[in-house]
């Protein structure tokens, strides 16, 4: 790494004009992040023309700011209103919304802000030092590796939330089925589209998530309020206590590292990062049953991970010229328009752009943290609004958000349908989380497996003989077998043994534990 170029880049980032563009970027990002449908990708595309007359570096700094600012904005609605605007913040909803219900929204948002800041910072440092190494890692990930990773993800889906395992698996199975709706991307055949062209690209994630989480929650609350008068949870603007910070520091660290590495993978990296980070914390926890009921680590880990992933997704763009997601694709376009071609030669040809953008992210993240500290207090007051006012506002946000995805009224009706399904699921004790996550991963699972089989010429042994996919699959088997083995061991080492007096009750107890 060229230290001089790095320092020059820092000088570029702290120029007053660039500081201003950075601030505008993160502010706009945070605002649009609050709205579920209008994602950073669309915003960057809309704002692109106004950057034509600006210095390329300043423009990119601003557009990048929108992207990572939106990541933080999305957390706010996930925690307060149960509206995850992006697949990578679905996991945050479980414990974030549970904390908000207990009147600890401030704690959740505070931890999320700190986690996001640390996650992004670790990723930026990692990016500065490891960008070329990590970029080649992304290239080693072919369809078989994605298939293995996505399968692992589907397995982890069953462990999130606090519902029972069987119900989570049923919901996940439905999610996988829903993922098959649309034109088959290998043969062009229509599946479950009922001759509707609107369904030919499948159902958008935001439509499903807004319906199941947002509208479902509104309907559920309406019913509850008709049943009995419910005292709203007291809302305190508490910043996380020292104990809570200490409790989540490990989660933030681990989440950041997981996010940094998985974020480099184009397509699905950020979702996997938040999911793996959450599952890891739940596995490590002494009392896993706290998760889904307001465990602070359940917010800290995925939030650190998805922000770290958002940052490291710049690596493939800036070093190989591969956009990792829709927002990166537009940034790619933006760079081209501004006369900068992202790719292997960028570091040498335009070090000012490369290092200027990376260093502006340090500054942008500090800005986000500083902005969010006073804003957390403002945001949590949303919960003091009477439900009769808050519910229609939430409904408006979801409808507007879904409409802005592709200006389609059809999507609004699909979302409302999912809202009713979400309400019924909640009544029957099903969590929407596993369904939504399996839905997102299902597309990845199916296309990666089919693509791999095409590459292997139909021979499935390729999955185990390739080093990376083989390792992931071995890990997957371990995750399945470990609890079973532990159970077996526990049975053997149980004091008393088969002849002991406790033995007749043991099988029953085992049964009830399951």
């Amino acid at each position, binding site marked *: 790494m060229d230290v001089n170029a790095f320092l020059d880049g820092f000088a570029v980032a702290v120029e007053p004009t660039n500081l201003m563009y950075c601030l505008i970027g993160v502010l706009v990002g945070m605002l649009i992040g609050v709205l579920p449908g209008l994602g950073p990708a669309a915003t960057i595309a809309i704002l692109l023309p106004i950057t034509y007359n600006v210095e390329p570096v300043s423009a990119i700094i601003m557009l990048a700011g929108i992207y990572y600012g939106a990541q933080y904005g999305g957390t706010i609605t996930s925690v307060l209103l149960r509206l995850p605007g992006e697949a990578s913040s679905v996991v945050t909803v479980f414990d974030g919304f549970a904390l908000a219900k207990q009147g600890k929204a401030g704690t959740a948002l505070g931890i999320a802000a700190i986690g996001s800041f640390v996650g992004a910072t670790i990723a930026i440092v990692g990016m500065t030092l490891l960008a070329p190494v990590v970029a080649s890692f992304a290239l080693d990930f072919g369809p078989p590796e994605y298939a293995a990773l996505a399968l692992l993800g589907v397995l982890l889906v069953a462990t999130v939330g606090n519902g029972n395992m069987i119900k989570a698996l049923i919901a996940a199975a439905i999610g996988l089925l829903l993922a098959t709706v649309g034109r088959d991307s290998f*043969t*062009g055949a229509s599946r479950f589209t009922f001759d509707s062209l609107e369904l030919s690209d499948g159902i958008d994630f935001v439509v499903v998530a807004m319906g199941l989480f947002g509208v479902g929650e509104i309907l559920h609350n309406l019913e509850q309020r008709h049943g009995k008068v419910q005292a709203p949870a007291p809302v305190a603007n508490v910043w996380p206590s020292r104990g809570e910070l200490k409790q989540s520091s490990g989660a933030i660290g681990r989440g950041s590292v997981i996010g940094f590495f998985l974020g480099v993978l184009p397509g699905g990296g950020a979702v996997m990062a938040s999911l793996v980070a959450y599952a890891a914390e739940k596995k490590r926890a002494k009392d896993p049953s706290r998760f889904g009921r307001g465990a602070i680590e359940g917010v800290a880990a995925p939030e650190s991970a998805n922000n770290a992933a958002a940052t490291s997704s710049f690596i493939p763009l800036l070093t190989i010229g591969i956009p990792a997601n829709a927002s990166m694709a537009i940034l790619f376009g933006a760079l*081209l*328009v501004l006369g900068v071609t992202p790719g292997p030669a960028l570091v040498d040809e335009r070090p000012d752009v490369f290092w200027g953008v990376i260093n502006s992210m340090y500054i942008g993240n500090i800005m986000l943290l500083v902005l969010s500290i006073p804003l957390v207090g403002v945001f949590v007051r949303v919960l003091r609004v009477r439900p009769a006012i808050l519910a229609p506002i939430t409904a408006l946000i979801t409808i507007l958000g879904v409409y802005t995805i592709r200006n389609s009224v059809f999507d609004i009706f699909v979302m409302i349908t999912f809202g009713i399904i979400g309400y019924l699921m909640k009544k029957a004790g099903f969590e929407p989380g596993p369904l939504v996550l399996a839905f997102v991963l299902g597309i990845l699972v199916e296309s990666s497996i089919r693509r791999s089989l095409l*590459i292997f010429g139909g021979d499935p042994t390729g999955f185990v003989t390739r080093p990376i996919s083989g390792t992931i699959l071995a890990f997957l088997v371990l995750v399945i077998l470990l609890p079973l083995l532990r159970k077996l061991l526990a049975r053997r080492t149980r004091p008393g043994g088969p002849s002991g007096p406790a033995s007749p009750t043991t099988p029953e107890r085992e049964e009830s534990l399951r």
Partner: protein
Amino acid sequence: MASHRTTISLAGAATAATLLLSACGGVSTSTGGDDGGSYPSGTVEMYVGADPGGSSDLISRQVSTGLSDALDASFPVINASGANGALAAAEVASAEPDGSTIAVQNASLFAITPLAVSEDEVTSIEDFEVVGGVSRDDYVLVTNADSEYQTIEDLEGADSLKYGTTGVGTGSQVAQALLFGDLGVEATDVPFDGGAPALTAVLGGQVDAAALQIGEAVENIEAGKLTPLTVFGPERVESLPDVETATEQGLEVEVAQYRFLTVPAGTPQDVIDTLAGGLEETFATEEYQAFNEQNNLAPLEVSGDEIVTMLEEDGQRYADLLDEYGISLGSAS
């Protein structure tokens, strides 16, 4: 009480922000073509059948800027992505034929998609009047620079190949299907979801070759990571002057993605003429020409009739050749 007001204004601010941003694509005030010469008298909605940020979207936005300046009206771009652009096409086809709804559309929707999807999902060019051509986006066949296939001849000797495409029913798929059909090489088509994943796969050695749009591949070609074997357009590409076209190499393959401006069928001729004039003015601007160059787009500034002929000929040619080689693009065709 104060806290209530804060929250409401907060939500209000958020709502206002969306309205502001979506206003770019949400407001619809129709301009009538009734008063003949006064077109365009208000807002002209410009549909695009792709998500923001892709080349279709960027081209539409550039044309929108040009038309706004030339015709002194507002041409907001509305993204209605889905079904390879068929959704946006349906919006335009069913709109009032008065010039208030227009769209830059892709040739692949009319010439290639019909080869891959079932008959009732096909969009017909007869539902539109073509105002004029816009530009051409060429494909280049690339292989990994470390692979054993560095020329077309190398490919010819291979016994089984895997090639990445940017999706079913795209020019990338047709071009390679025709190429390997002509070479007589047994090759498996591996469809990816767009250009970026196909690029990743060829860089990572997951597939042997891929046909990518010039803009997606050029940087890695210049960096020496990818080898360009051939371009599929009718003539060589400006940014890759040394790469021969497939036709030059004696192959019967010519595939390109091109885009053109359309209005609903039945739109009055004077409206079409006004738009054609606006296009011409747009094409003449330095800004537009620089845009084409940065995005590796070749101008295709021809008349609407020529475009219609091209579409019909291309569709027929692809169908015949695929038939000849016994290749099917999708199971539904």
